[in-house]
C-alpha cells in the first residue's frame, strides 16, 4: 500500500466545527481523499479499480450507490470497476480486503481504496439510532438511547465487576494517551484540545441518568465527518505509478472474521471475534505480537482499546487495564498504540476508520508521520491495523511491513 491521504476529521472538538453552519458533504470528502491519493500515484489512468468503504450514508446522507461516485473523483475512473463495501465500523477494513483480493487475484494492479462517513448531518441523539444499525435491530428497543455506548458500557461494567474498580484507571489512561497523540496530528479531531488534567477527566464518574452507567463521554470515540484513501498495488502497480518501495508498505498478513450479530457476547470481557481475526493475521504473516512496532486498534470506546490489548496477547485476561495504566501503550511505551489519537483522539468517521488506520501505519512505517512519528526499530519493522464493526462482529486485522 502507498500514497495514503486523510482529510481532517471534523466534528465537536475542532475549532472549525460549527453545527449551525453548512458543512462539506459526502462528495467533498470523497473527492478530497480520492484526489489526495491519485496525486501521489500519477493519476487515475494508473488505477484499475475503486473500492469504497462506508457504513450508513443511506441514513446519514440519504445516499446509497457510493461506488458510482468514483468517476466524480477523476474522469479517469470512468467505466472502471467500483464497489462499495459495508461492515458497520469495519467498512473501511472490508474496502481494504476487497482491494487486496483484487490485487492478489491479479484482476487489478492498482486499486484506489477509500473510506468515508459524514455523520454530523444529524444531532447525536438521532445519530445514535443510525449507528445502532451496526447491531441487531431486534435488540434496539431494549437498548440504551445511545445504543453502542450502552453496549460497551455493559462490557465495561462486566470488566469492572470481574476485575475491580481500579480498572477504570486503564480507561482514563487510554483517553489521556489518545488526546496527547491527537495534539501531534493536525488532521485529528482533538488536535485543538488544551484540557489540562486529561487523566482526571477520564476518571469522571459516569452518570446513568443522562448517559450510560459505566462509561463517561471521554470514554467514547467522536462523531466525525471525514475520509481517508490509500492505493493498494501489486509490484507491477508500484512500478507503473512510479512509487519507490521505500514509500510503500508491504501487506504481509490478513485476518478477517465475523461473529453472529444476533447473539450477545458469551463473555463481555472478551473480544473473541477480534482475537480470532488477530490470530489469523499473525499466522498469515508468520510473525508474533513482539515483532510489531506500532498498532492502530479500534478504540470505539476506551474499554474496547483495553480489551484489544488482551486480544493481542500483550496482557492476560483482566490485565489489559493495568498494562495500559502503566503507560505501555503510550507513544513512548513498549508498544505505541494509536499514535495519532485513534478513534477517541483522531476521530471515527465510521466507514473511513479502517482506511485511516492503514494510512496511519503507512505513515509510521515510511517515516512520513511528522510530529506524530514514533521510532520503528530495525528489528520490529511491522505495523498492524485492527478494524472492528459493531459489538465485535466483523473484524479485519492487517499486518504491514516497512518497504
Amino acid at each position, binding site marked *: 500500500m502507498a500514497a495514503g491521504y486523510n482529510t481532517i476529521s471534523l466534528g465537536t472538538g475542532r475549532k472549525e466545527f460549527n453545527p449551525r453552519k453548512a458543512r462539506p458533504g459526502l462528495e467533498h470528502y470523497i473527492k478530497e481523499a480520492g484526489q489526495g491519493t491519485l496525486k501521489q500515484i500519477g493519476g487515475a489512468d494508473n488505477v484499475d479499480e475503486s473500492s469504497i468503504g462506508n457504513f450508513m450514508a443511506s441514513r446519514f446522507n440519504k445516499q446509497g450507490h457510493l461506488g458510482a461516485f468514483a468517476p466524480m473523483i477523476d474522469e479517469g475512473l470512468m467505466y472502471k470497476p467500483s464497489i462499495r463495501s459495508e461492515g458497520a465500523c469495519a467498512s473501511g477494513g472490508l474496502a481494504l480486503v476487497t482491494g487486496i483480493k483484487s490485487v492478489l487475484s491479479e484482476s487489478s494492479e492498482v486499486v484506489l481504496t477509500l473510506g468515508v462517513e459524514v455523520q454530523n448531518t444529524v444531532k447525536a441523539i438521532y445519530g445514535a439510532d443510525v449507528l445502532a444499525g451496526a447491531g441487531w*435491530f431486534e435488540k*434496539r428497543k431494549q437498548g440504551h438511547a445511545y445504543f453502542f455506548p450502552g453496549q460497551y458500557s455493559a462490557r465495561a461494567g462486566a470488566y469492572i465487576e470481574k476485575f475491580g474498580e481500579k480498572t477504570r484507571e486503564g480507561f482514563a489512561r487510554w483517553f489521556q494517551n489518545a488526546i496527547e497523540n491527537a495534539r501531534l496530528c493536525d488532521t485529528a479531531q482533538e488536535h485543538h484540545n488544551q484540557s489540562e488534567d486529561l487523566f482526571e477527566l477520564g476518571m469522571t464518574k459516569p452518570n446513568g*441518568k443522562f448517559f450510560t452507567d459505566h462509561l463517561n463521554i471521554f470514554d467514547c470515540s467522536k462523531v466525525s465527518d471525514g475520509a481517508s484513501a490509500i492505493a493498494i498495488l501489486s509490484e507491477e502497480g508500484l512500478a507503473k505509478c512510479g512509487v519507490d518501495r521505500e514509500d510503500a508498505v508491504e501487506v504481509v498478513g490478513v485476518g478477517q472474521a465475523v461473529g453472529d450479530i444476533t447473539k450477545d457476547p458469551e463473555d463481555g470481557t472478551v473480544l473473541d471475534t477480534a482475537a480470532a481475526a488477530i490470530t489469523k493475521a499473525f499466522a498469515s504473516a508468520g510473525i508474533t505480537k513482539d515483532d510489531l512496532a506500532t498498532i492502530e486498534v479500534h478504540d470505539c470506546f476506551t474499554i474496547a482499546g483495553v480489551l484489544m490489548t488482551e486480544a493481542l496477547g500483550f496482557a492476560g485476561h483482566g490485565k489489559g487495564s493495568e498494562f495500559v495504566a502503566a503507560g505501555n501503550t503510550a507513544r513512548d511505551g513498549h508498544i505505541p498504540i494509536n499514535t495519532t489519537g485513534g478513534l477517541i483522539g483522531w476521530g471515527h468517521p465510521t466507514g473511513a476508520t479502517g482506511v485511516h488506520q492503514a494510512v496511519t501505519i503507512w505513515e509510521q512505517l515510511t517515516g512520513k508521520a511528522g510530529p506524530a512519528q514514533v521510532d520503528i526499530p530495525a528489528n520490529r519493522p511491522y505495523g498492524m491495523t485492527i478494524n472492528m464493526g459493531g459489538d465485535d462482529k466483523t473484524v479485519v486485522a492487517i499486518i504491514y511491513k516497512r518497504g
Partner: protein
Amino acid sequence: MSYIERLNNVSVLGAAGKMGSGILLLTAVEMADQSLKPENKDAKFVLNAIDISWDGLKGLMDYLRVQVTKLAEKKTVMLRQMYADRTDLIENSCIINEYVQDVLRIVRPVTSMDVAYESDLIFEAVNESKSLKVKLFTDIDNNSNKNPWFLTNTSSVPIHEINEAAKLGGRILGFHFYNPPAVQKLVEVIAPEGTLPELKDFSMQYAKNLRKVVVPSNDYAGFIGNGHFMRDALHGIKEVEALSAEHGFAQAVYMINKVSQDFLVRPMGIFQLIDYVGVDVVQFILNVMKPHNPDENLHSELLDNMMTLNVKGGQNSNGSQKDGFLKYEKGRPVAVFSPEVKDYVAFESFAADCDSKLGALPSSAVAWKGVIRMRNKAEVLGGYFTDLASAETMGATLAKKYGVRSNEIGKKLVSDKVALNENDVNVVMMTGFFHAYGPINEYF
C-alpha cells in the same frame, strides 16, 4: 383533591406572553410527564392556553413544539423508560416525536376566557395591573363552580390585596417565576396569612417537580427581587443625574452602566438590565410599589421622560433586545440615548474618554463570566474587592458607593420583613439575577 386531580384541568392566562409562554411550557411538560406514569393512565389532562392574541397563540404553539423537542432530546434516556411498553416506538426519533405529540395534545389554545370556568387551577401572567388581575379572577370565580385556585406571577402587586378585592378566601398564592421561566431556577413564593395550607403544599410539590429553587417572600409590594432591583436601578439613575451636569448624560449613563457591570462584577450593567426588563415594566413596578412605601421616593422622572419619548427597551418576539437607554447591535450595547437630541450617541465618540476618567480596574479584577464558574469564587472576589476598597479612581469610588447602597437595600428587605433572612435575599439575587455574590456581604 390530590395533586394529580388538581392538574386535570388547568388554565394559563396570558399564555402567549413572555412569561406566560414559559409557564405554559413548564406546566404542559409536567402534566404530560404525570400522564405517562402507569398509575395515571386513565387520568385526564387539559391545559387551556388563554390569550387575547391569535397570532400570539400561533407563535406559542410553534414555540412549544421547538422547546419540547429540545427538552425531549435531552431526556431521551428517561423517555425510553417512560415508553418502554410501547413496542411500536423503537428508535429515539419515534420516541421523541411521540412525546412532543403527547405534550401538545394536552394544550388547547383559545382566546375566550370561558374555558377557564372549568379549571381547578389558574396560572395568571397578564399585565402588571392589579385591577386587570382582580377583574379576571372575579369573572372566573363568579362563573365557576370549582372553587379554583389561582397562582399569580405578579412581581409586585401584594397578593392579599388581590385576594381581598376578588374575594378569593385564600385561594390565591404568589408564584413568581423569573425570566425566562423555562431556564431560570428561581421562584419567589408569596403566601400571605389566610392562604389555604393545601394550596401552599400543592405549590411546593409543583415547584419541586419543576426542579425550581423556592424562596419565600412576605407579601410586600415588589417582594424580594424587585424590592432590590427597583431601588438598585433608582440608585443608578440618581448617580447618572448627579454626573450628567459635569460629564454629559450619555457619558454618565455609559459610566454608571460600566461601573455596575465591570467594577461590581455583574452580568450586565444597570441600564442594560433596565432595557432587558423593559423601561415600561420598571416604571410600572415602581408605580405599584410607590404607594406602599410612602417613606421612599420610588419614582423616576427620567423613566417617565423615556416613556414619553417612546424609548422602552424590552424584547422582540424572537427574544432579541430592543433599544432602550442603550442601542444594541447583535445583542451588544453600542450607543446611549440622549433625550436632548432624541437620538443615540455612539460609544465610540466618547467611550475612551469616559474609560480614562473612570480609571483602570485593579489588576485583580475578574469578569463575571469567568468568576461564576470558579470553585474559589469567594476568595477571588474577596481579593478583588479588597483592592477596589483601597483604589482611589473615580470608577472605584462610584463602585464602592453602589455596593454600599446595594448592601443597605438588601438589609432593609430583611429589617422590613419582606425577606425572612439575609440568605434569602442573596439567593434571589444570585439565582434570579445571576449575580456572582449576594448584595448582603462583607465586601463593602
